[in-house]
């Protein structure tokens, strides 16, 4: 008979299981995903479904390879969550084989080479995303123009999703007509051409493209997670604060802050990606530093780097710093 020391049931424990936590996060993503489907492209559902299925299969395979029982580990739903986050991060028109590469990198190199859940130093979804961004730069910057989608026949769409290269697969389709840059990319290209940014045009563009609504959806989900105490406020607040601080000090004078906060993937990153407890710092103070670092780095990458979106690399870079932050925090706590 197993000797039970702490009787959770008799003590009335109300702890959430890992599975419940992960599924709650998936639930919290729903408003954002609905807005995404409506304003950007319903193709995200195809991507998400594909990513979740392949991720589950690959995880089962990886766990088998490691000689473990796969059911208890797959049940925690952590890889499903990571797959959905990856699918949300990539452009909806991405060819499925490229998404598969991203998922494989995420599951195998992002998670299981380190020993699975709880042992991975880097956020798996961001590892997959970074690998895709470096490997397929062209298709990773191809964002859908919602108005252009109507011009595209379903057959072409399926063909584009399944063929090897999105751009060369169907030369008859004017890709420029159905894709557009995200507002952030738009700003970048304008700046590169040293044109002046017309604010009203930009706001119009942001509202039109629907990114604002998508981000509001993610914000709603994030607040739900805070309310349900699935996540704590330290990381989201410090990520946004870190970004806003530098953006307020150094970005183009004409660009309003709320636009840059709500047009990229900062909200998704702050509430859903950076808050992954496995790869974040563990103490509250450490989490504030960690989040602030992500916010600051994502501003630096957006402003000076070669990529329009900085969250992924900012998260990965700060993941690298987590052991240092934890160690320093412990030293500090001991000194007091």
């Amino acid at each position, binding site marked *: *008979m*197993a*000797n*039970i*020391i*702490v*009787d*959770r*049931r*008799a*003590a*009335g*424990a*109300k*702890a*959430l*299981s*890992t599975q*419940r*936590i992960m599924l709650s996060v998936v639930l919290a993503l729903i408003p954002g995903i609905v807005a995404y489907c409506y304003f950007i492209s319903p193709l995200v559902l195809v991507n998400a479904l594909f990513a979740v299925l392949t991720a589950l299969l690959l995880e089962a395979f990886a766990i088998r390879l490691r000689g473990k029982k796969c059911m*208890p*580990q797959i049940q*925690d739903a*952590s890889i499903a969550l990571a797959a959905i986050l990856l699918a949300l991060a990539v452009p909806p028109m991405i060819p499925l084989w490229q998404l598969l590469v991203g998922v494989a990198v995420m599951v195998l190199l992002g998670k299981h080479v380190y020993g*699975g*859940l*709880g*042992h991975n130093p880097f956020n798996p979804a961001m590892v997959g995303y970074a690998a895709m961004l470096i490997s397929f730069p062209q298709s990773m910057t191809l964002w859908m123009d919602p108005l252009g989608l109507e011009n595209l026949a379903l057959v072409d769409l399926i063909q584009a999703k399944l063929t090897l290269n999105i751009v060369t697969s169907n030369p008859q389709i004017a890709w420029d007509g159905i894709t557009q840059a995200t507002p952030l990319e738009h700003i970048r290209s304008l700046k590169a051409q040293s044109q002046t940014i017309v604010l009203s045009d930009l706001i119009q563009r942001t509202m039109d493209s629907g990114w604002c609504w998508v981000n509001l959806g993610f914000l709603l989900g994030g607040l739900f997670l805070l309310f349900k105490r699935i996540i704590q406020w*330290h990381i989201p607040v410090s990520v946004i604060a870190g970004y806003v601080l530098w953006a307020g000090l150094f970005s183009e004078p004409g660009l309003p802050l709320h636009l840059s906060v709500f047009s990229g993937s900062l909200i998704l990153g702050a509430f859903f990606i950076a808050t992954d*407890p*496995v790869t*974040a710092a*563990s*103490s*509250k*103070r450490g989490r*504030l530093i960690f989040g602030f670092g992500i916010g600051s780095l994502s501003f630096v990458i957006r402003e000076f780097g070669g990529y329009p979106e900085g969250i992924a690399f900012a998260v990965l870079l700060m993941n690298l710093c987590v052991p240092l932050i*934890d160690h320093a925090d*412990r030293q*500090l*706590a001991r000194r*007091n």
Partner: protein
Amino acid sequence: MLNKITSAIGLNVSLGRSAHRKTAPFGFHGGLSLDTNKRALGDNTELCSIISINPPALLTIPLINYRKDSVAPKVQIHEKVKRGQALADNIVSPVSGVVEAIEHCEIIHPGGLRAPCVVIRNDRLDTPINTDTEYRNNKQEQQAVSHDNDNAEAQAKIAHFIAHSTTMLDQAALVGLGGAGFPTAQKLLSSNQDLQTLIINAAECEPEIACDEALMRSSSIQIAYGISALSQLTQCKRCVVAIEDTKTLAIESMRTALDTIDSTAELMIIPTRYPAGAESPLIQNVTGQFIPHNEKPINHGVICINVATTYALWQAINGQPMDSRVVSLGGAEMPNPCNVRVRFGTPVSYVLQQTGNAPADDTIRIRAGGPLSGFDLHSTNVPITAMTNCILAEAALCAPAAQPCIRCDDCADVCPAMLQPQQLYWYTQAAEHDKCEELQLDACIECGCCDLVCPASIKLTETFRFAKSNANYIKAQQQLADDAELRFLDRKNRLEQKEQARQLAIEQRKEKLRSQKKPDREKINAALNRIRSKRHTQKD
């Protein structure tokens, strides 16, 4: 102001271990708000009786102290003992009878350990020991005092106790009834320094455990006298009785009792939050001080005494050494939950049977201690001791398998010792004992809060308990090895010195001989010459 800002942004840990609130009760870090679930109190009405049961025919008294070290018996097999007679240091016989055996028996222990015990056959006479006339007189007066509440008489008794405290405490065999079982006399007599605060621990924070609450409702006046005796003995500047705010009836009854005897003790109502009754959180709550785990509260001018111990002290002042305690019977599968006064050494199975709680089938788990601080018993044929505050009956439970830690840090949020359980878990799994020491594994009070909030169902408390005893074992082994090395080096030194001394003596002797030999040769030659010359002269 600064504190407010920093605590708002979560930096309060960095600014020292300051109190959480400005006024008493000061609060403590972490903890959990649990359902109190005190089944033993019944429907929580005013009437709350403590059931008495007859002691069994055979009682088994473990010969171990609070550190689980065995102690030498003071009785022999077949010796007749009386109730209250010392069986060993600070252990008395709970009945009169004959020592049937002194042997290893199973005791209440998470690992089903066996320990040396004195087995006494009860003669059912309860003949008290006749140490002195004082005892007998008090024994006869006991009834009278508890009934007519004669304050003057009680004060006289207390004065007599203060005058003879050392001997009386020695005979009383008091140990703390809170669960740790620390010898009370040792605690009280070490308080030579001036004592700022005497805390009477009436918090009893764990779910299901209600023995102190029942005692406070039924015997508050005796407790009040006990508290009065304690505060006079320790000459404390302040005496605080700390009770959780959900125990309204106990608070009422204690307030009346303290007022009746004009006690100077103050009643502090603390928020109901587990583990408010553990020593360190309690001291933080009452005084705002954080006492490091490796220091004794007494060195900071604080002593904590359990409320049931003060009742036992009053009984001892009236001539009745500590030989019984109130045990709560609870749990979802206990048919007849109640509080019962049990003599030490009574088997758990006997208690359950006498109270109509014999387990219906084998699947029911019987636990000793509460749902968090206790553990499942291997067998119910183990004796109740001063540490057994509660017996629970729970349905069989298949504990969920532990999943990997996701570093959510919920455990650190609830840890009343302000540790980082998830990092400690990591290091205990890697058997990095020095890292565990660095993170103060020793400071863990094993309250079980981290277990309750862990989303991965990791058995943290069990791991820490094991790691602590393992660390102690390693330390003990290291100590043995170090001692052996010292002995070896000593012996080597000794032998070397001996050898050196011997060599020196040989050298000296040789030297001496050599120095003696030189003049001899000349003398011999001279003598030989003399002889030769003599012979020559004789021949001639």
